[in-house]
């Protein structure tokens, strides 16, 4: 997955980071782009090792707390056209709408439902938000041989009580995240297969594990591009309904 799918982790910072907030801000600065497009392949491995495969296209305009994204499923045929519009806000949780072509209407995803699994994957709707760095408190826990371990605590409503982030010192990329709720470890995310795309270090594979359910989802990115020409008008409810 593009790190836009775990965007509250993508936060900019001054060049030399010594404390946790500075580290995360530097991560965000290095990841910044005006827009993004990719085609993702999702493999959900559920109980009994059954694997379900789906594909979507993802477009984003703007970055971090003020970005807008549209995600549309393309495969399999039964789900083709189902879309999700995310409008992020720097000071609060995002607005999200799902488009369902079969009934010809959009559905608002309520804030209380953001912890719900995203269409049977191991992501939750909240995981798709971009949250501004100001919405978290950070604490540097240690230096583990080329990797910083940072604890982040959300200041506003979230299903997570805290998360641990592992940031690679070499290129300020996040390689692993563990998110907890009151009961314990809820999700673990690994970012792999990094490569530079238009100067931005990007993971080409993201694996997320829902620990209580013991299921995992792998997302691979194809045709990934940054800073392509996209219009604001393509990130509205009308655009979501149009399916363009």
């Amino acid at each position, binding site marked *: 997955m593009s790190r836009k799918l775990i965007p509250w982790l993508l936060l900019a910072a001054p060049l030399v980071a010594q404390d946790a907030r500075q580290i995360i801000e530097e991560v965000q600065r290095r990841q910044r782009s005006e827009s993004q497009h990719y085609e993702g392949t999702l493999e959900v491995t*559920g*109980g*009994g090792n*059954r694997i*379900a495969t*789906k594909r979507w296209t993802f477009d984003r305009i703007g970055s971090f707390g003020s970005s807008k994204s549209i995600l549309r*499923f393309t495969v*399999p045929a*039964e*789900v083709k*056209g*189902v879309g999700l519009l995310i409008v992020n806000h720097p000071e609060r949780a995002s607005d999200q709408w*799902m488009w*369902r*072509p*079969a*009934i010809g*209407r959009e*559905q*608002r*995803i*309520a*804030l*209380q*439902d953001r912890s*719900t*699994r995203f*269409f*049977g994957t191991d992501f939750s*709707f909240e995981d798709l938000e971009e949250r501004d760095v100001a919405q978290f408190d950070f604490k540097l826990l240690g230096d583990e041989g080329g990797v910083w371990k940072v604890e982040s605590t959300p200041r506003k409503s979230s299903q997570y009580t805290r998360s641990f982030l592992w940031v690679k010192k070499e290129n300020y990329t996040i390689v692993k995240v563990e998110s907890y709720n009151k009961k314990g470890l809820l999700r673990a995310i690994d970012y792999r297969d990094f490569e530079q795309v238009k100067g931005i270090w990007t993971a080409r594979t993201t694996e997320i594990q829902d620990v209580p359910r013991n299921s995992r989802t792998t997302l691979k990115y194809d045709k990934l591009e940054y800073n392509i020409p996209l219009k604001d008008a393509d990130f509205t409810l009308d655009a979501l309904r149009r399916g363009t």
Partner: protein
Amino acid sequence: MMLLRLISWPYARKHLLRWLLTLTGIVLGVGVFVGMHTANQSVLAAFHETIDRIAGTTQLQVTAGEPGFDEVVLEKVQALAEVRAAAPVIEATVGTDTGNVLILGVDMLGDRSLRTYDFEGTDAAIDDPLVFLAQADSLIVTRTFADKNGLKLNSRVPMKTMQGDLVFTVRGIMKPGGLASAFGGDLAVMDIYAAQKFFGRGRKFDRVDLALADGVTLEQGAAKLRTALGPGFEVEPPSSRGDQFEQTSRAYTLGSNITSVFALFIGMFIIYNTFAIAVTQRRAEIGILRALGATRAQIRTLFLAESAVAGIAGSSLGVLFGIALARGMSGYIGGMLSEVYGVAQHSGELELDPWLLGGALAMGVVTSLFAAVIPARAAASVDPVKALQKGRNQALTERENRVRRWWALVCATAAGVALLLSNNSVMFYAGFVLSVIASVLLAPTLTLWLSHALRPVLSALRPVEGTLAADSLIQGPRRTSGTVAALMLSLALVVSLGGLSRSSFASLSEWMTTALNPDLFVTTGETLTSRTFVFPALLGEGLRKIPGVAELQMVRSVRVTVRNAPVMILAIDVESLEKRTGMRPLEGDVRTMYKQVARGEGVLISENFAHLRGAKLGEVLEIPAPTGMLRLPVAGIVRDYSDQQGSVLMSRERFIQAWNDDSVNIFRIYLQPGADEAAVRQRILDAYGKTQRLFVLTNSEVRQYVTRLTDQWFGLTYIQIAVAVLVAMLGIVNALTVSITDRRRELGVLQAVGGLRQQIRHTVWMEAVAIGFIGIVLGLALGAVELYYALGIARRDMIGIDIGYSYPVGVAAALAPVILIAAFLAAIGPAESAVRGSLVEALEYE
């Protein structure tokens, strides 16, 4: 115990038939009471259980009557800090090939925070959540429903929707238990937005279920929600839905309670009578025991023990019989309540209330004991010599008669006073009870008088047999009067309910002629009461263009809580209604009231609403609507039978404005002069029948439907009547059996001096028919009084409509031969027993 074994057991064996009759009386008395109540409770309990199971962890529900409310309300609820989770719900009962299924439309994203969906399969989730949401035809069914219909994942399920018959796909199966057990397992879950589409709900929800944030009490949460949403919304715990249905169906519950208590009363009377006769009849035996040294206490204990044994045995069997009866009736009651109230009912397992069963058992035993106490005490205290004298105790002394008459006069006077003060409900019901007591107290005297009056008639018919039969009645009023009283009560019940039914039909028919006068009715279901589906208003424009259609009225009927009761709001084009029906008001100015309502400046209320809710002409009625509280004056009071709890008629425009809902339940169509009804009906079906769930009913079909519904309503009453009459018949058999036993010597002498067996038979038959005749006379007379009270109860507490008094002459005329034939049939056995007995034994008797 020894006395029971040595005295009672041989007696019971020797008089097995009589004991069986006594037991049958107890069984029927207890059984009908248990059966009616258990069946009612089971249907209501199943409804409550469905609500509970569907509610899951829901703490509060937001509703706005049947029309539901706009989606935006959900966001308002979810925005409150006091609310932890809120999920919208739509419920619809839909027909499938194998019967009705309750469709629960939910938002699968958030609903799991309130309800537990325990799915089958290793994934422990619906087959593919994305496919489920992406495909509008997705359905989750229960294992019960799947097994019943042979379904598995990806099976196809045809269902009747607003868009016609559609096929849905099973994309998940729930394990039995919890939610999956609601509505007897005939439950399916669908995405709420798909449900809106298929059931024509627009962008509305039926309700919002919610759970409160930690630390917020129900009262705090409800208060906050009420403030945030305004007066048009109700915020109550899920259990209140069940209470609301009970309130809606209270007329039925009250009616069935009254009749079953009455049946119980008759049963108790029979039990008392049979015991009193049995004890009295054994006075000679008591005399022998006393002469042999038995103490009074022993005699008393013996008879009380006997009655206790009979009471326990009969009541136990009665409870079992009642349970069997309830099993047979609960399905019928569920179906009837669904049709009458338009709220789907599912009769699940029988709800056996230990208190009810224990109470019924105790009632049977106590009645039996009570029946034995007075005669046993009297028998124990009597002089042994007198006790050995035949027949003395069958006659009522003049003093006894006088005392009874005085008491009857006191009760009748009190009933008259109560009647004068009958504005007060307590006085009204007291008057009813007192009038019944007065008639029961008068029964022996009247029986005696009528027996005297009948003597010359019977003698004229058959000089010997007729005279003997009449004398037997005159000499044994104690034996006869109990049976006559039971018969009188049964027949009075038949007459009053028959009269109520007949009067209701007459009033209903008059209303149908005036108000239900369109030529065609276009509805969303075969039943007019079902409000699961609604039409879009746009369909009305299309229907108006159908050749042959002269005028069309759009009706929206929804149940809304007004003055703490769920009443029916009828939104209609009032000017058209005035023009076409010209319904005359019971109160109000016909020249102005329709115009006032048409302008949206008032409402018409039904007569029953006015009675039941105490509403008056000109008074301002507060009607909660999602846009706020409507305050409209009552412009007129009309007779309307649309709903038992009453109806409020308002202009369609005002309704649309207040509820933001322009959907339609029924299109009332008037045809152009000369237009062919069948042809127009076919044109409508051709134009819309394939794309729309739509039924076109003719005027006569609607009338038949209403009549059938009324028949169903009275159907259970007829069952109770049948049982009551059966109980009374048993009383006749018992009385005759005792009579013959009493007169064995007399009948033996008659045979010894040359009397023919046929003459004996005739004597017994005539006695039976005479009892039947006296019962009929008294029953029809008391029925006239009871009918008055039944109409009063109906008006005051059941349907609120002033139904005119009309004595059911036809019912009375039909009853007379039925009872006389039944009395004759009841006499055949005892008569044969009288002629087949040994003459020597008969002469040796006593």
